[in-house]
């Protein structure tokens, strides 16, 4: 890191924005701040479960409870989930694990800036690292869930398609989408704290209209709504790769992925432009 550089601080209104220089800058800063991201990630990782009894078990308890209650509702005839190709618990747990990557990732990204308010107002450091370390945290939790899924697969004697090796690739658009929205919401959350509540409500609502806990229904309304459900498309595609080894809605997936890339770049750029005035808005 070259520290012998001259930094110039200007009012935001006088800063000229050249997108290409900006993108280069953002990228360089990301490379430079990998140490911070790693340390922040470690901090949350160690601190997160230090004073808890069950520790990382919480990561799998939540989807387990969720799936268990759906099984209960199904058995008691309140809900009619319908037939799934593989045993329902496996189907739902795979989908939910992927969905949680988006849901908990978005929630923790949204809160990342606000919870580090004390730090931001006292030390000048790249604030992107807070968002990146939050998503890294969610990725870690996802990995734990995957490890748990291996046990589930064995117990139910079901085996995933070999194409599961493409899963990391398929997850990239979902991650970009989560990060993008996370950048935007974390900024807004600084100014209006309602955003955090709104986001957690929003992801819960989205979960219920997304075919994750139930197979895709054929109702026209449902299909139309889910055409616009980006995280839904990405999650179900990733799940289908694991379970069947193919993506039935491949075109939707490609469209959604492209859109996610744009969302990510735009939101990150916005974040980087607005970042310098974040500290004073606390």
């Amino acid at each position, binding site marked *: 890191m070259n520290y012998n550089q*001259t930094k110039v601080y*200007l*009012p935001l209104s006088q800063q000229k924005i050249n997108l290409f220089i900006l993108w280069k800058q953002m990228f360089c800063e990301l490379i430079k701040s990998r140490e911070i991201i790693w340390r922040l990630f470690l901090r949350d990782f160690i601190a997160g479960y230090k004073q808890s009894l069950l520790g990382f078990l919480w990561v799998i308890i939540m989807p387990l409870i969720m799936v268990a209650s759906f099984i209960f509702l199904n058995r008691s005839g309140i809900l009619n989930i319908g037939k799934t190709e593989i045993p329902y618990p496996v189907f739902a747990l795979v989908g939910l694990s992927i969905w949680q990557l988006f849901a908990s990732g978005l929630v923790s990204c949204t809160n990342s800036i606000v919870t580090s308010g004390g730090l931001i107002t006292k030390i000048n450091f790249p604030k992107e690292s807070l968002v990146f370390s939050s998503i890294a945290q969610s990725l870690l939790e996802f990995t734990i869930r995957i490890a748990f899924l291996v046990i589930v697969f064995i117990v139910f004697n079901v085996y995933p398609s070999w194409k599961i090796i493409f899963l990391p690739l398929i997850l990239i658009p979902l991650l970009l989408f989560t990060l993008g929205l996370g950048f935007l919401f974390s900024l807004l959350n600084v100014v209006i704290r309602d955003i955090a509540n709104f986001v957690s409500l929003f992801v819960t609502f989205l979960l219920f209209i997304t075919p994750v806990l139930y197979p895709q229904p054929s109702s026209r309304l449902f299909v139309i709504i889910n055409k616009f459900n980006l995280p839904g498309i990405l999650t179900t595609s990733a799940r289908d790769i694991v379970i069947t080894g193919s993506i039935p809605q491949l075109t939707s997936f490609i469209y959604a992925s492209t859109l996610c890339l744009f969302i990510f770049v735009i939101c990150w750029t916005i974040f980087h432009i607005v970042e310098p005035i974040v*500290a004073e808005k606390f």
Partner: protein
Amino acid sequence: MQKNFKNMIDNNIAIKVDNVSKKFCKRLRYSIAYGLTDISKKILGISIESQKLRKNEFWALDDISFELKKGETLGIIGPNGAGKTTLLKLLSGIIMPDKGKIEVNGRVGALIELGAGFHPLLTGRENIYINGAILGMSKKEIDKKFDSIVDFADIGDFLDMPVKSYSSGMFVRLGFAVAIHSEPDILLIDEVLAVGDMNFRRKCYQRMLDLKKEKKTIVFVSHNLLLIKKLCQKSMLLDQGKMVFYDNTVLTVNNYISLQENRFSKEPLNGYRWGTGEAKIEYVKLSNIDNIVTDTFYNGENICITLGYNASKKIENPIFWICITDDEDNKISGTTTMQENVIIPYIMGKGEIKCIFKNISLCPGIYYIIAGIYGEDGEEPYDRFGRIAKFRIIEKTNQPLNPNFTGIFRPEVKWLTQDK
């Protein structure tokens, strides 16, 4: 936002501040609205009119300009709310100016709050690495300096205990140790050292002197005028966001003291008073050797204090008490009639009593008077009146306010030289 300008400013200059202003919002509701409009305007590429004040906004800093060469030490003093911390935050790039331009040349270390990034549940060891990374150190760098950091912080066995079990002194020591080891070229220090104990403060002071010798640039905010005078050649006096004075530290400190004094003389005394009320002090009068009523005395002059009292009943053997205090209510010199073997058989109705402090030997400054009337036993007062009056001591020969004296007591001093 940081932009890299190569060789744009003279390499000898560490900090250059040009007409910088910063505004803040007084109301939360408005600041939310302004925050949203600012952010959305910025995103949409509409220019933000940061030059003008909107409703409920005020200038926290107004038109500040100065230049600091490499290796110089600048002190910033001023009353509370003058904008000192805001200026440090601007210099460290935590907040952006609304007007003007700041150029900073070199790695900046800002000690605005020590241990700001510490996580209470993590151990000291873990926190050193996290805080170090946030301050811009690599793992290698921290590994190399780890022992030195622990040594400086002097936390002993607590290194592997969660930070939440630390005493506030230990917390601050660790914070300072990490920050100082990030080896900044420019060190910005807010009033953070006040928390540590004497030993630690001495260590910090020593470290700052070392940094000064290493030609590091230091900007130092403190209310400790003595420390400022020792550390900084140049100082800046801020008051209500404006740079009132910027010069040699001694002159700036003088200015600061007279600013505070002017405020003082306008302020009411706010005396506090208790007692049974059977006898009351009605007035106090200060006069000089020529019997002229005044509140300004030369050092070495006699101060004549006249107390006017009113006793509602006959009080036998009352004791009068007069005490001089400094502006922090530390008692400097007190006397009672009993101590001076003055016996007053009784008081009843109105009367006056005089007390002369001869050849007062005090350093220039503002002093206060406490007066009281006590009974024979000296316990429950009839009337005890704190800050009943105040006076100013000035130096006869020197300039009216010379803060270069150390201490409070200032007898007549003669220096004699002898050649051998």
